[in-house]
Structures are given as structure tokens and as C-alpha cells.
């Protein structure tokens, strides 16, 4: 056997990823962006009743929260149907009958979803930042008007406060974390779909893991502190700690929106954990899929 052929070909992964991406975009998934824009604009209309300062705050909370929901939902729903659809349409046979490794096929499929998620998060960020910027400009103008006659230093302070509440690096980093969480969920969904028998099973299981994942941190800390009175309870907590990802770690975003100062290294570590999970679930998916009978 000749060893010329590389084990994994990026070109093939690329071709499958782009094809998957095209397939997903034809499903008109981007309509949810419209919903997102409406939500933001609608919520800022509602906010008009509250004071200015709160408005930017609530706008950020709503935007980041909605981005997190949309990205997570999109990741789960788009990925869950990929493999079953390909089997049903028999396109999986034509693809795997080419000299394509099964790992390349899975990586390509995941790549397509990640591309879709990246574009969606990017578009949502643009909508969000535009709305935020416009509201911020209005606030700056209002404040300037209200503060005429006050000492210039105080006016400057107030203006600086408003600017600080606008688009910042921390906000961008928070969006990166939202993306990492969605990527993790997509990879997890792909893994589950390699042994699931139906679409619904995949979605329900992923949503289940999603909820448990938010409690994993609490279970883990309990377990590590040797808490839990009975052997059964300890086993249960241990299983949760070992099997599930700690999704609560990615909710650092909530605190960022609130204005908590989070060091860049912590962002990097959280993002790193997300990337590691994404890669590991892809490997698990491959382990199940590589000799699967189709």
C-alpha cells in the first residue's frame, strides 16, 4: 500500500464543510436574525420607560442572552439532522464511496455547522453593535444637553461612563465565549447523532445534557468535597461530574454584561476549554462512526 495519501485531507474536509454550509443556508435559517433584530429593537422600545443608564445595561443583557439562546438552538437543531438526512437521501453513500475517510466526513459536517454559527454570531453581533452604538450616541447627546452648566470634569465623567457601557473588548470576548459554547454543543450533538436512531432522540438527549451541564459544576464541587451521604449518591454525583461538561463556566457572559471585570487570561482559558470539548466530542463521534454500518 502506498503511503502517499495524507491521513486527513483538509481539501476534502473543506469541500464537505462548504457543501454542508450551503445546505444549511438553503434552509432559510437566517430568518431568526430578523427575530433577533426585532427583539433588540422591541426591547429598547420597552426600555424607553426606564432610565437611560439602565437602558444600555438591559440592551446588553437581552442581546447577549438572545445570542446565546439562538446560537445554542441553531447548533443543536442544525447538527442533529445532518447525519440522518444524509443517510435518508443516500448522499452519504455517494460521499463515502469516494476516497473520503469517515473522519473527514464528520469533520467536514461539523466544519459546515461551525461556519454557519460563526456567520450567525457575526451577523447578530453587527445588529447588536449597531443598535448599541445608536442608543449610546443618543444617550451621549442627551447627557451633554442635561449637563450643560455643570462642571466640565463631571460632564466628562458621565460621558466616560456611558462610553464604558458601549462596545468594548470585553463584550467582544464575551461573544467569543458564546460561540465556543455553541461549537461545543454542535460537536456534542454530532457525537450523539452518530449512535442515535432518530432525530428526536438526538435533540432530546442534547437538551438533556445541556440542562445537566449547567448543574455539573454544583455536582462536581459536592463530589470533590466528598459530600453526599450514601454510596449511591456519591456514584451519581461522580457520574455527572465525569460524563458532562460544565456549561455554567461559559455563563461568565452574564456577569460580563453586568459589567464585571474579567481578565483576558480567564477568557482564554474558558475558550480553550470550549475548543478542547469540541475537539474531543468530534473524536468520540469518529470512534463510534468509523466502523458504523450504513
Amino acid at each position: 500500500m502506498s503511503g502517499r495519501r495524507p491521513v486527513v485531507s483538509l481539501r476534502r474536509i473543506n469541500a464537505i464543510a462548504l457543501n454542508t454550509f450551503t445546505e444549511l443556508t438553503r434552509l432559510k435559517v437566517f430568518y431568526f436574525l430578523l427575530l433577533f433584530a426585532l427583539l433588540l429593537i422591541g426591547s429598547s422600545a420597552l426600555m424607553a420607560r426606564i432610565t437611560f443608564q439602565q437602558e444600555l445595561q438591559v440592551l446588553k443583557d437581552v442581546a447577549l442572552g438572545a445570542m446565546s439562546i439562538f446560537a445554542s438552538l441553531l447548533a443543536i437543531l442544525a447538527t442533529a439532522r445532518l447525519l440522518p438526512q444524509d443517510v435518508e437521501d443516500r448522499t452519504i453513500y455517494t460521499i463515502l464511496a469516494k476516497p473520503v475517510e469517515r473522519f473527514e466526513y464528520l469533520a467536514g459536517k461539523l466544519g459546515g455547522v461551525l461556519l454557519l454559527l460563526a456567520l450567525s454570531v457575526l451577523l447578530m453581533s453587527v445588529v447588536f453593535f449597531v443598535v448599541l452604538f445608536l442608543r449610546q450616541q443618543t444617550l451621549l447627546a442627551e447627557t451633554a444637553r442635561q449637563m450643560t452648566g455643570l462642571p466640565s470634569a463631571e460632564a466628562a465623567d458621565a460621558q466616560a461612563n456611558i462610553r464604558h457601557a458601549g462596545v468594548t473588548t470585553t463584550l467582544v470576548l464575551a461573544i467569543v465565549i458564546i460561540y465556543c459554547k455553541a461549537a461545543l454543543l454542535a460537536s456534542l450533538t454530532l457525537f450523539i447523532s452518530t449512535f442515535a436512531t432518530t432525530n428526536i432522540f438526538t435533540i432530546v438527549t442534547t437538551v438533556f445534557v445541556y440542562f445537566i451541564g449547567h448543574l455539573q459544576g454544583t455536582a462536581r464541587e459536592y463530589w470533590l468535597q466528598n459530600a453526599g451521604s450514601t454510596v449511591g449518591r456519591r456514584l451519581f454525583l461522580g457520574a455527572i461530574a465525569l460524563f458532562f461538561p460544565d456549561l455554567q463556566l461559559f455563563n461568565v457572559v452574564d456577569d460580563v454584561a453586568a459589567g464585571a471585570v474579567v481578565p483576558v487570561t480567564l477568557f482564554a482559558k474558558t475558550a480553550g476549554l470550549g475548543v478542547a470539548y469540541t475537539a474531543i466530542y468530534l473524536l468520540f463521534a469518529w470512534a463510534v462512526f468509523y466502523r458504523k454500518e450504513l
Partner: protein
Amino acid sequence: MTDPAVALEKITKTFPVPFQRRVIVALRDVSLRVSTGEIYGLLGPNGSGKSTTLKIILGLVSPTRGQVQIFGHDAASAQSRANVGFLPESPYFPKYLTAAEMLSFYGKLCGMRRRELAKRVDELLELVGLTAARDRRLGTFSKGMLQRIGLAQAVINEPEMVVLDEPTAGVDPAGTRVIRDLILELKRRGVTILLSSHLLGQVQEICDRIGILANGALVRDGRVDELLIAPDQTELVLEHASPQLVDRISKAAAEGGASVIRAAPRHRSLEQVFLEATTEK
């Protein structure tokens, strides 16, 4: 020595039945060889194991026992598929791609470079007669057109062998004829062809060798002409023969120790009638 295109060695495939201790035997000790350059037809009723055999050859399913070699490579390796094209039964290709986009997608999966790919796509569209439909979405294609573009997809990387699962299922006779001609054209170019079908007439017409599967076992395997020869029978087709002449021939046969089994007007095949009618100007 050149390796055969396909060599199945005592293949057995069983599927476990979930939650039960039984297994279903899909294939039992099947040995089969396809030589390079020939058209091999795999026949059998539904559920006889045709599709499983093809999937094993393509490495989509691994055999429970036995050896599969494709041009000397283990069928499980992606390498074995570098020289093989496949058209599954009634395939569905991404509706949103145009004919040309679809072909270049599959070309890329074969690791083809952009330049050679563009040339090859044009060439294949020409070959399967879809040049005019080049930029049409596959969603608008008829069954026959889909099958033709599917065939083009199977040979995008100029494989030495193509595997066709029911290539004419659901296609009208005119389309069937086009596909048949394409298959013969591929054979002329030296491509080995392995096809499964239950349209016996078609198989008889184009295959060099056939194998018949029944209940997971290969019950016949050999050259079509040899398998079809009825021992001790000779066929005689006469034109403008009067009943008296037929009578005399029967008598002569009886004198020679033979007997005429059947004497009736010769029927044309419905396919011939259909084609004649639909291609009239």
C-alpha cells in the same frame, strides 16, 4: 499478475437483531470475482443480499467473516475507493446545487485540482448529454437526468471500476437506453462495471458475466452466454415461412431424431415497439 477488480472471498455478513439473541444472515459464504474490463451483473430478488454485497465492496459495511479486495486493496481502506465510482439506488443529490456544482463537489472529494476538474466537468456533462442543463438546479431534474448526472458523478475521477445499484430503477425506456449506451461507452473505455438489477432483459443485453443471489447465497455465477444456453436446443428464426414449410421442417426434424418444441410468430419486445413509436418523427 494483475489483481482482479473485485475479489470476495467467503464473505459472511450477519446483522444482530436488537434486544434479541438472534442474528439475521444477510450473506453466507459468498465468493465472487469481477475481472478488469468486464460488465458484471448481480441479480436477485429483493432482500437477496445484492445491496449488502455492493456496500461491502464499497467499504460502507464491513463483513462479519471473509476477505474483500478491490484492485488488491482491503475494501475498508479509503485507498480502495480511489479507483471506484458509485451510483446508489435512486440517489438524491443536493437539490440546491447545479449540475456543474454537484460534479465539482464530488471531484473535490476525490482530491482533484481546480483546473483538471473544470475540464473534466465539461467533458462529463457532454458525455451524459447534460451540457444544456449545466447551470440548472438538480431540484428541477427528471429521474432520468438525475440518473445520468449520478453516473457522471460516479466517474468524475476516471475510476477503473464503477458500481451501479439499480441504475435504471424508475427510469423510462428511452432514459434506460441512454444509460445502457453510457454503460457500454464506459466499457469501451476500459472501465470495469459492476451493476445490480432485477431487470433481467437489460442485464442479459449488456452483461458479460452475471451472478445470481438468493437468500444470501450466490447460486449461479458465470458468463451470460454460457448460462443462457439451453443444452440440446437450437433456435431457428425464419422470415416469410409458410405453414407448409414449417410442417415440412417439423417432419424433417422428427426423422433426424429431434422435435420442434414451439413454432409461433415471433414477438418483438415491448421496448422495441415503444422506442420505435416514441422516436418516430
